[in-house]
Every structure is written in structure tokens, then in C-alpha cells.
């Protein structure tokens, strides 16, 4: 898998002289969106027992497929490890990377990528076994910590322990599933990743209550979809797909009432429902299709990670800006 990626990068770099532009045309021609997701992170991107991908990150890709192709099911998912993800996007193996990826300066500026927004505000947390009786990250001096390779988590961890003058041992695995195996076997005392990921991974323990997530959050992890740099048409489509979902929640448009809302006299809702498609080089129905087939941001959140899911994560900072959170989308006009 990994080798094929590098080979892919090499061949793409060598033989593609048409460079980047034209993802939209390519997607329309292929009839599906190629979407990079995680290998398995319940709530964000995980395949169910029938092989259907579900999750908050998955819904971004489904939204883009609905906007571009009018059908949210026209998505081909590629499960990627943290290490593989950027190469897969750079080489054109995928069109969107929607894989709980933290937006940082280095990634935005030096990898030839663009972040199209934030669909989940996260922060790095720690999970420990309950029987250790630890209630604060500041008591973790000397601990062995399981961690996934190629993440911002590795860097934050080092910074945090150094700032607090503590020592630790990093046991770096390739996938999330391996980190939880290491945690189960007792190879490490602590598991660290984004806090949402901790809740998701905790469900994989035989007894999820045997582990506790510590209250401290040691970093900012704004997670969002990523596209290749230099293809502004595609960048805009992904960016405004996410914005349309957030705006729809703000205006109270849901997948259930979208047909009635289409007749609404409110000009803002009217703009959300149509008339802006041409500017994005899409049909006028683009946003209607997103909301109808995928739902607004709030619906997606509740169904995948919120109250309607086993994760039961509170909206917290991910609530809309006018409901006490920081989720804010520029207006559609």
C-alpha cells in the first residue's frame, strides 16, 4: 500500500504534465469523488458491517458528491494511515482528504495542499487505565505513551512534556488500531490522540469504562478537509460544501424540511437553495442536493458523533457561533 503510494507519487510527478487543474472535470468524467478517509475511526470515518462508510468526515465527501454529481452515494473511499494521507492527495490518488487532519502552517504552506475549512474543533487529550488512579496529565512523568506515527500529536506531546519538565517514552505505531492494542496489552500506560479520537478508540476496549479520558487538552486541533493547492475551482467547491452545511444548520434547514424551505420567502434561505451554482461551476441545485441527501452540519454531527451515536460527544466548541460555540461559516451571497 505504502509503496504503491510512493510509486504513485513518482509516476504522477513524472508523467502528469497537465499538473493540477481540472479535478472537477475529472470527477464528472469518472462519475465519482475519490475520498481519503481514516482506516477506521468510529464517528469520523468507519465502515459499518455492510461496508458503507459513515461519519462526520465521510459526510463532507458525500456532500461534495451531492453538489457535483447530484448523488451523495457516488464516492469511492480510500482508507489511509496518517502517514500515507498527504502523499495520496499530492499524487492525485484521491480528490479530497477528509481524515481528521489538523490544519497547521507547515502542512498548509509546504505540502502543496489547501485546507478547505474546519469541520471539527478538537484538541489533544490523554486516556489512562482507571486502575492507575491518575486524574491529571501532570502526574504522567515517566509514563510510556502509545501514539500514532505521522501526526501533530507526536509533536504536541514532546512540547507538552518538555514544557512541564517531565519524561516519557513514545511507542509509535502505524495505525490507530495498533495503538489501542498496545494500550490493551499494557505496553503503554497512556494513549494519546485528539480527544474525539480517544472517545472513539475507547469503544474498542472490552470494557470502555476501564479507561478514563483525562480532562486536560494540550493543543488546538482544527480538523478539516484538504485539497490540492492550485485548483481553485475544486477548492471553492469543497470549501462551500462545508459552508453550505453549516449555514443550513444556522438557518434551520434540514434534510427533512428542505423541500418546504425551498418555497421560503426569506431571501437568505433562497440564496442557500439556489442561484449561486454558476459561480462555483455547479448546478443551481448543488446546495439543495447536499442538504437533502446528507443533511446540515448539526444533523451530521448528532448522527455520527453526538447524542445519536455511541460516542455521545457534546457539541461544546463545535456548536454554532450563536449557540455558544465557534462553528461559523461565511454567508452565502
Amino acid at each position, binding site marked *: 500500500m505504502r509503496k504503491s503510494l510512493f510509486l504513485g507519487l513518482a509516476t504522477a510527478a513524472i508523467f502528469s504534465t497537465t499538473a493540477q487543474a481540472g479535478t472537477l472535470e475529472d470527477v464528472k468524467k469518472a462519475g465519482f469523488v475519490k475520498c481519503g478517509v481514516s482506516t477506521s475511526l468510529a464517528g469520523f470515518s468507519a465502515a459499518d458491517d455492510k461496508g458503507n462508510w459513515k461519519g462526520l468526515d465521510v459526510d463532507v465527501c458525500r456532500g461534495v458528491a451531492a453538489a457535483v454529481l447530484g448523488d451523495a452515494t457516488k464516492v469511492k473511499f480510500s482508507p489511509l494511515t496518517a502517514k500515507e494521507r498527504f502523499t495520496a492527495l499530492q499524487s492525485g490518488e484521491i480528490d479530497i482528504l477528509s481524515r481528521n487532519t489538523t490544519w497547521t502552517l*507547515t502542512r498548509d504552506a*509546504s505540502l502543496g495542499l489547501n485546507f478547505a475549512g474546519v469541520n471539527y474543533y478538537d484538541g489533544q487529550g490523554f486516556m489512562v487505565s482507571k486502575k492507575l488512579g491518575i486524574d491529571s496529565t501532570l502526574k504522567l512523568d515517566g509514563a510510556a505513551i502509545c501514539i500514532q506515527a*505521522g501526526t501533530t500529536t*507526536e509533536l504536541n506531546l514532546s512540547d507538552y512534556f518538555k514544557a512541564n519538565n517531565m519524561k516519557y517514552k*513514545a511507542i509509535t505505531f502505524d495505525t490507530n488500531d495498533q495503538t489501542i*492494542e498496545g494500550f490493551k496489552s499494557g*505496553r503503554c500506560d497512556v494513549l494519546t490522540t485528539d480527544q474525539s479520537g480517544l472517545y472513539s478508540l475507547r469503544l474498542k476496549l472490552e470494557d470502555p469504562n476501564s479507561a478514563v479520558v483525562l480532562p486536560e487538552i494540550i493543543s488546538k486541533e482544527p480538523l478539516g478537509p484538504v485539497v490540492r493547492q492550485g485548483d481553485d475551482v475544486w477548492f471553492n467547491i469543497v470549501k462551500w460544501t462545508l459552508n453550505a452545511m453549516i449555514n443550513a444548520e444556522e438557518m434551520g434547514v434540514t434534510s427533512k424540511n428542505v423541500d418546504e424551505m425551498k418555497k421560503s420567502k426569506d431571501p437568505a434561505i433562497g440564496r442557500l437553495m439556489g442561484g449561486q451554482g454558476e459561480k462555483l461551476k455547479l448546478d443551481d441545485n448543488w446546495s439543495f442536493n447536499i442538504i437533502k441527501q446528507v443533511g446540515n452540519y448539526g444533523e451530521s454531527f448528532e448522527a455520527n458523533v453526538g447524542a445519536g451515536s455511541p460516542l455521545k460527544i457534546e457539541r461544546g466548541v463545535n456548536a454554532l457561533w450563536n449557540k455558544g460555540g465557534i462553528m461559523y461559516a461565511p454567508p452565502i451571497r
Partner: protein
Amino acid sequence: MSDPRHNSSELPSKPPIWNDPKYRALFFQIILVAALFYFFYSLVSNTLGNMEARGISTGFAFLSEKSGFDILMSLIPYSSDSTYGSTFVVGLLNTLLVGFLGIILATLLGFTMGIARLSKNWVIAKIATFYIEIFRNIPLLIQLFFWYIAVLGVLPSARDSHSLFDRFFLNVRGAYLPAPVAEDGMIFTGVAFVIGLIATFFASKWAKNKQIKTGQRPPLLLIALGLLIVAPLLVFFISGSPLSWDVPKLAGFNFAGGIEIIPELFALLLGLSIYTGAFIAEIVRSGILAVDHGQTEAALSVGLTPAQNLKLVVIPQALRVIIPPLTSQYLNLVKNSSLALAIAYPDIVAVFMGTTLNQTGQAVEITAMTMGVYLVISLSISLFMNWYNAKMSLVER
């Protein structure tokens, strides 16, 4: 007698240059070389051009940037303040360590099992057969998971460690041994050992000469034992035993002090050497069977013991058959060590082509460097083994 047909002026004139095989061959070779050059030139320039067009950073400047992440095991001083360049060295040394130890262990195991499989003792021969057939036929990755998760992963936690004399500890975090700490005066023991080493070298020369002259072989093993172990030990005690032990102690989450062997290294070594050892065993067996049975009969009839026969007659001849395929197994072992990633051992693929690549995003440079490393390691092993092969080959007088 001049036959007009042999007159030089009558010879068929030189063929035109495009029909001359010599020039033709040269022509096509030049074209091939030029095409190859063009291929690689456009490979590199297109790659660089496209990466620049996509806004991907290129070049090797990242090697001197601060890495900012920690590595589980390092043979050189390393912290998150070190550079990406030092992550390369850390990964490289970890790969070399596991390759070096793995080759030694696999060779020992392979030779033992290969000879054991030919044993006349039914039990020993069957044990060796079982070992070879089981471990040769299961994929290495599965064996690594087996050792790491099923064997080392079920060891007790740090607080309930297995211990031996309260000095050696074994738990799920690894093995902990007392570390020797040299104090003032230890230098004398070291000097005594070096002197013993030199003396042993001359003693073996003397013993060989004596055997050639008189046919009597002096008890060299005893002499060496005395020079290398007894004498340094005497010096050690006379100088007042200047050595203390740093015994690992349970502190907080885990043991501190002493020597720590992480389970990732242990599992990787077990997996690699047991897997490769099974192949080496078969190579050794085929090598021994390739030596004509008449050689053994001749050796036994001149009065050599079976052990001497094996050591002096069979193995030297078998080695000529064994060494070339053995080299391939060594190369396989080193390359297979890149599976380390699956069990969190920080080798060059896991550290440099893993985390470093992901943090910097410079896939082309890092992949090229890593490929270069494996190429250099493999070629070095090949060179060494070719040299050894030439040394062992039949000297015709």
C-alpha cells in the same frame, strides 16, 4: 604461385559503414546511452518542475530543521531538539543494530538446526525438521505479530514483573538487566585483557609451529582460557573489584536504571532470526549433503573423530556451496527488518520514512535516501560475503 583471387585488390571492398557490425553495435549503444540519459534527465527535471508547480517544498534543507518529536530507542543522544538529519542517523543505527544481531543469531540457529536435521538421533532430527517446516512456511509479518502480541504482550505489568535474584526483571515493557558501572581502577583489568588477547595470538602461532614440527598439539584452549579470563580476573580482584552494578528499580510507572531491552527489539530479533534461521538451516543441510560421502569415509579411516571430520573435512568443503545462498538470506534479513514498523520498533523506515516524511512532506528526497541506505547496506554485505567466498574457495595448487 599467385592466385589472382588472393590479390588484395581483388578482395571485396569494405562494406558501407551502416553494414559494418562493429559500427552498428557502437551506434546502437550510443543511442541507448543517450536515451537512458534523457530518460533520467526528464525524470528528475519533470519531478522537480511538477513539485514546484504544486507548491511542494524540495531540497535537503529540512535535514537541519528541528524534529520536535521523540523516538523510543536511540543509540546516539537524541531528543526532540535534534534535527531531522539526526532522526535519519537514529533510524539507520537502529536498522543496523537489528540487522547485525539478527544475522549473528540467524546464522547460529541456522547452522545448529541444519546440522541437527542430519543427526542420526531421531528426536533431534525431527525437532529440527519441525522447526524448519513451521517457521519457513509462515509469513514473517504474522510471526512478528505472534512474538510481539501473543508472547511478549501477555507478560505481566511492571509491578508484577518476573524477577531473577531481584536483579533481572521481565515485564510487558521489556527486559531489565543490571548495568555494569566501571569505577577507578577498572582500567587495569582492561589492560590485562588486551595483553591477554595479544599473548593468545602469539601462543596460537607458537602452538601451530610446534604441531607442524613435532606433531604434538599444545593445550591451546587451556592457555587461552588462562590468558583471557583467569589473568584479567586476578588483576580485577587485586585492584579491589572496581566494578559496581546499576540495578534497575521500580520507580513510578516502570523500572529505572540498568539496561533496558525494549520488547519491540526483542520481538523483531526473535522473528527475523527464527524465520531466516529456518532458511539457513536448509542451505546448510544442502551444503553438507553436497560433500561426497567418500570424504567422510576417508576422514574416518585415517582416524579422525566424527567431530573432527565435521570441523576439518566436511564444513570447509560445504561452505563453498553454502556461502552464495547464505548471502541472499543475509540480504533478505536486513530488508525484512523494515517490517519493524508494524510492531513499533523505530527503524529507518518507521522513523525517517514514517514520521519524518510525514512531518516534512518531502516524500521524494526521503524515499530516495532510504532506498540508498538499503542499497548501501546490501551491497556492503554482498562485498563482504564475496570476499569471504573467495577466501574459502578451493585453492588449486
